[in-house]
């Protein structure tokens, strides 16, 4: 018996540090490697302006991917986020154009509430069909991806939905372009969303249940967790995150088009996985996800800043870099 003590002792703080290393730090090290690559390719890469541009641009995917972290760590998947973003943006702009409320500020505030509501509802739709219908999330969200996109195209009559009021646009624009304490507003929003996400996932019992459901559904069920409710809730959170991303997106170009949000789902999932969350569920890393979203945007940025490859082959280089980043991350995880 005495011996057991000595074994456990070696598993104290030292192990926790090692745990942290393995999982959480690896994506950040891969990110650092990308920074080195960027700096080599173009000295401008490390300029504050460029980095802030990239950080700001990554905000949509980062915010959506925070939601995806919930969905994926509960063992789900959401392919509809890109189309959902287009739909939410479209409806939000249509509402803003309707000028149904007096006062631009009130209108804008209500518009944001409308966006959040539509996002939550779209998420609820996904969650409800998946849990009540007991259908694979892959199929359901592939279906709703087509549905949301179609409805957007229909609302836009095949074209685009743009904010009409110049005044309102000018008032709204700073949400994307504004700077507060040296950091662009979208970056603050990422930080806020990340803190809130991390709080919910790591510090509340709901977050615990998310991980439990993703780790072993049966066990969660036997433990009295309402598996369906938790699962549906992750899709609602995903919808709300999409809506937040839209609130940052709309002021940038002031329009929703048929291409808005195209392929965002793949980018969001990639960000989540690169960030260290496993697709099979049971693990969720909010900060890794944000780091992953940033990495994706940086790879694109490096491609444009570099002069090395033909524009035809950029996709190939980009794909290779992502695989290598993942490889670096996995190797680091194993080493530590």
């Amino acid at each position, binding site marked *: 018996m005495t011996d057991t003590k000595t074994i456990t002792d070696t598993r104290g703080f030292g192990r926790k540090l090692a745990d942290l290393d393995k999982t959480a730090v690896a994506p950040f090290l891969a990110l650092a490697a990308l920074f080195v690559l960027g700096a080599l390719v173009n000295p401008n890469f490390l300029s504050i302006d460029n980095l802030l*541009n990239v950080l700001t641009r990554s905000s949509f995917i980062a915010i959506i991917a925070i939601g995806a972290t919930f969905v994926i760590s509960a063992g789900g998947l959401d392919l509809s986020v890109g189309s959902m973003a287009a739909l939410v943006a479209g409806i939000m702009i249509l509402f803003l154009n309707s000028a149904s409320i007096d006062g631009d500020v009130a209108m804008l505030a209500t518009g944001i509430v409308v966006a959040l509501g539509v996002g939550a509802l779209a998420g609820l739709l996904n969650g409800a069909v998946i849990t009540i219908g007991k259908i694979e999330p892959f199929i359901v969200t592939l279906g709703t991806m087509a549905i949301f996109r179609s409805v957007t195209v229909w609302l836009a009559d095949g074209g685009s939905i743009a904010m009409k009021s110049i005044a309102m646009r000018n008032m709204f624009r700073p949400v994307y372009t504004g700077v507060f304490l040296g950091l662009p507003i979208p970056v603050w929003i990422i930080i806020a969303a990340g803190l809130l996400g991390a709080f919910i996932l790591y510090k509340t019992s709901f977050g615990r249940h998310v991980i439990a459901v993703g780790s072993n559904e049966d066990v969660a069920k036997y433990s009295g967790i309402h598996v369906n409710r938790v699962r549906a809730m992750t899709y609602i959170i995903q919808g709300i995150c999409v809506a937040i991303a839209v609130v940052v997106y709309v002021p940038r170009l002031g329009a929703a088009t048929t*291409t808005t949000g195209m392929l965002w789902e793949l980018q969001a999932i990639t960000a989540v996985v690169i960030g260290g969350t496993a697709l099979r569920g049971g693990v969720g890393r909010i900060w890794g996800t944000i780091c992953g979203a940033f990495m994706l945007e940086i790879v694109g940025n490096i491609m444009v800043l570099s002069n090395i490859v033909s524009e035809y082959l950029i996709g190939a280089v980009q794909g290779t870099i992502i695989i290598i980043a993942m490889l670096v991350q996995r190797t680091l995880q194993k080493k530590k």
Partner: protein
Amino acid sequence: QDKEVNIAVSIPAADHGWTGGVVYHAERAAKLLEAAHPGLKITIKTSPDGASQANALEDLTTQGIDALVTLPHNSDELTDPLRQVKEKGVFVTVVDRALSDPTIQDLYVAGNNPELGRVAGEYLKDTLKTGDVVVIRGLPIVIDEERQKGFDDAIAGSGIKVLDKQFGNWSRDDAFKIMQDYLTKFPKIDAVWCQDDDMAVGVLEAIDQAKRTDIKLVIGGAGMKDMIKRVADGDAMTPINVLYPPSMIATAMELTVANFYDQVPVRGKYILDATLVTKDNAKEFYFPDSPF
């Protein structure tokens, strides 16, 4: 006037601004034409890619049609499927993208892609004489290649230097990003050419945000209403646009219908100009109700 005629229209799905415009004009034209000719039935089908367009062509012919108006995704791919349609005795009108075998098409309504690039290139050459230009291309497909080639030919040997070319996927978001990165990469840019007005919107926003003043010109193309309005309003940075109207599908439909209902048979080739839109003629091309 009671002649029964079935016409099918097969076009790409509305997956970005311009194709969205095509769908809009096709549906509008169909309503007008059907109203004018009681025996006329027009079926419009959109397809997301070449292979599904080939499927749609099969399905439409199975239903029995007299004429087909099509804007093919890709002429190489759709030549064979269209040949099969033709072999069933259907009148074939091809829009925008000429087939590899011209004997298939009874009528060809051509938007002129190389011309779009050439007109833009000529304008830059004449206005700037010398200068550094960045280019944002669309997606790597034939149309894009043709426009690019027209542009490259026009500026060949002049003082216009292309600093960089990237694909913006005909998306304003992607164009915005690429333009931001161009601005980081190149301290001085004189002009931007993007193959499509949708992308020009993103480019203008990026320039605006960066507060850069060195860029003199942003040339788009295709005649999107917002851009035409800028031209009409005399915006200094966007003094011109090159027309490439999605309404060409409507023109093609009208001509095809005329072949059946008017006495004159309509055959051959109708080439639409890539008209240069300037402040002077912009009003003519501004349709505030069009979605594009």
